[in-house]
């Protein structure tokens, strides 16, 4: 276990160094941005839509007791942007793209393709890990914004169609919750900064963990399966743990 943790951080150091020096595989980066980001958008939108709808429904039941249904937009907006949006999106991308990364690299490892790269004088970290790492860092915040927007839209649908709200009232309520914690550079809500800082970190965790397990796969196809399972489980746990620590840090930096 201690060796694995040490190897994980050694990989992080090597990847960081490789990000800052040549050679750089731009074509692979674009391809990975498509695989990790663009190809995940539809499933993230679906997740966001139903999460926003169910949040609005549950909030309506509880808030009706106190005559506070007018605050549904605030609840959906705050919980989506601060917590559910980043975490759910990261978990969905882990299951989709993270598993794919671990399986692809694991298969390359057990069929000696990784060794073939090395014998041709190509560093597998630069060729295989760095493009995935950078693509995940860039694309996770992007798909999270899309997921957040669709979740808030899902809440709007419930508010308008089932709770007889006007769209204006719901949107004002969402905006109030974004505005209450203040702004950076006068226009960017602090909540949004918090909501985008998390997916940036989660993107790094997903790519690094998936590549780490993929590159350590051994024992044929069964080993690839084991590496994929480990990648998904470890990434998911690290995302949830990191979410707690990031929330603590962000609450200290930007107190309400």
């Amino acid at each position, binding site marked *: 276990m201690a060796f694995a943790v040490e190897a994980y951080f050694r990989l992080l150091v090597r990847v960081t160094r490789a990000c800052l020096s040549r050679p750089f595989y731009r074509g692979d980066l674009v391809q990975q941005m498509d695989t990790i980001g663009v190809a995940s958008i539809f499933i993230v939108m679906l997740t966001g839509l139903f999460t926003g709808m169910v949040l609005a429904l549950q909030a309506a039941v509880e808030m009706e007791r106190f005559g506070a249904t007018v605050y549904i937009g605030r609840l959906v907006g705050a919980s989506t942007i601060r917590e559910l949006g980043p975490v759910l999106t990261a978990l969905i991308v882990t299951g989709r793209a993270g598993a794919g990364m671990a399986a692809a690299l694991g*298969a390359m490892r057990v069929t000696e*393709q990784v060794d073939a790269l090395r014998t041709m*004088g190509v560093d597998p970290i630069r060729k295989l890990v760095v493009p995935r790492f950078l693509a995940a860092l860039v694309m996770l915040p992007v798909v999270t914004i899309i997921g957040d927007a669709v979740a808030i839209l899902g809440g709007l649908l419930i508010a308008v169609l089932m709770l007889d709200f006007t769209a204006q009232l719901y949107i004002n309520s969402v905006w109030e919750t974004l505005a209450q914690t203040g702004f950076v550079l006068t226009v960017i809500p602090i909540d949004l900064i918090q909501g985008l800082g998390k997916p940036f970190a989660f993107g790094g965790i997903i790519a690094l963990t998936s590549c780490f397990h993929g590159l350590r796969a051994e024992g044929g196809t069964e080993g690839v399966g084991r590496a994929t399972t480990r990648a998904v489980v470890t990434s998911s746990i690290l995302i949830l743990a990191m979410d707690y620590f990031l929330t603590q840090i962000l609450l200290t930096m930007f107190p309400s």
Partner: protein
Amino acid sequence: MSGRTPDGAPEPGSEAFEAELRDEIRRELETHGGGSAQPEIVELRDVWLSFGTHEVLRGVSLGVARGGTLCILGGSGVGKSTILRLMLRLLLPDRGEVLIEGRDISAVSRPEALALRERMGMVFQGSALFDSLNVFDNVAFPLYEHTKLADGEIRDRVEEVLSFVDLDPAMVLPLLPSALSGGMRKRVAIARAIVHRPPILLFDEPTSGLDPITTRRIDELILKLRRELHVCVVVVTHDVRSAARIATETALLKDGKIIFSGTPEEMHATEDRYVRAFRG
């Protein structure tokens, strides 16, 4: 046992086949002199390697000169492929020297090791072609990585090496590895290994899992590589017949040690019980 295949070649295992084999070896030795008088281009000196408590190599010394073909023989799991990994510095020895063109690849700096690796081409047991790339991109990969050749020149070079390994470039260039047969994949892997014209070629079980006719064709291709490109070849195999066809030198590995080394004819003539048992 004196039949011939439909294309006129003697059937593997037949007397004609064995006779042709011996002639071929003799011709090869006469042409290239077995490499014995030349300095060794690939050499292991007293190499020891352990994985945990398991000693894989215990003082292995062997070598092969420019223009020679060394076949390292041995049963499964004795560490034959490990020797190739040491030559490429995919592994480092616990003790001893791994000399490539006179320089210890295990002791030089990483950039120097990369430069030495570029002097070698490796054909892996499972071919190790990149699944996501078609044949052209697979074969052109080393050229795109390490040369500044124009696209047209790279295309010409790829077509040239594919023709050399008896593949029709027009047919195979756009295909993915999954669309190729085992023998074709092996040929593409050989084309990729020679496309940057390395003076040393390493083969890990080149005929493993292939039928006898394809095996013979791959062996002929290895002979052709030596004959026409004058490269030094190191082959790891458990196929004694194949080794007899292509080797100028053989080494038999058992329990982490070289228990026999010599020409294929010396191997054929030895009275050593294990060598005879291995020879079958």
